[in-house]
């Protein structure tokens, strides 16, 4: 399966059960509670991570929450 992850073309083993959440786990992304994901140009609501399937040709971007306080 070929997808784009943060601008990099990536080849993954075929897995029809792969979701956004399981992809992040597969990529060893830590602190996933603080990760925002954009799938094909649309920012996903967090509950959708566990249900949104990852398909051939998908363009996925993710980044961490950026914030703080004094």
């Amino acid at each position, binding site marked *: 399966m070929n997808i784009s992850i*943060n*601008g990099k073309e990536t080849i993954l083993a075929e897995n029809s059960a792969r979701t956004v959440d399981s992809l992040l786990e597969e990529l060893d992304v830590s*602190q996933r509670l*603080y990760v*925002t994901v*954009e799938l094909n140009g649309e*920012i996903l609501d967090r509950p959708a991570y566990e249900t949104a399937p990852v398909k051939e040709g998908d363009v996925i*971007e993710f*980044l*961490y*929450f*950026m*914030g*703080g*306080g*004094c």
Partner: protein
Amino acid sequence: MIIIPKATYDDMITHAQEGFPLEVCGILGGIYDTVSANYRMTNTDASNEHFMMDPREQFAVVKDLRAKGLTMLAIYHSHPETPARPSKEDIRLALTPDVSYLIISLANADKPEVNSYKISAGNVQIEAIKVII
């Protein structure tokens, strides 16, 4: 060490002063350790004590940096009334790997202070800032 053009360094301070008494935030991009791009970001918290970036703006910046062949080098924010040191919340939420965290303090309004830190898994290390013309 992070190397910052004087115009960018001054703009961060101006941004903090313009936004006072609220916290402001932004992203710096560049290559290796040298900054060449500056993005003022929206503090969606609009708070004197907190900042939070808008993910849509974050994605737009990341894509713009990538298109320019640059990477994200630093995340900055202001402390309108407290020192240029990361708070517990700053440390806890320093989640983006491999970037510097810059803090602009306006605690002394006549003499803004800027410090840069590397923060990883709760460990904080101050780093030198070199301002270039």
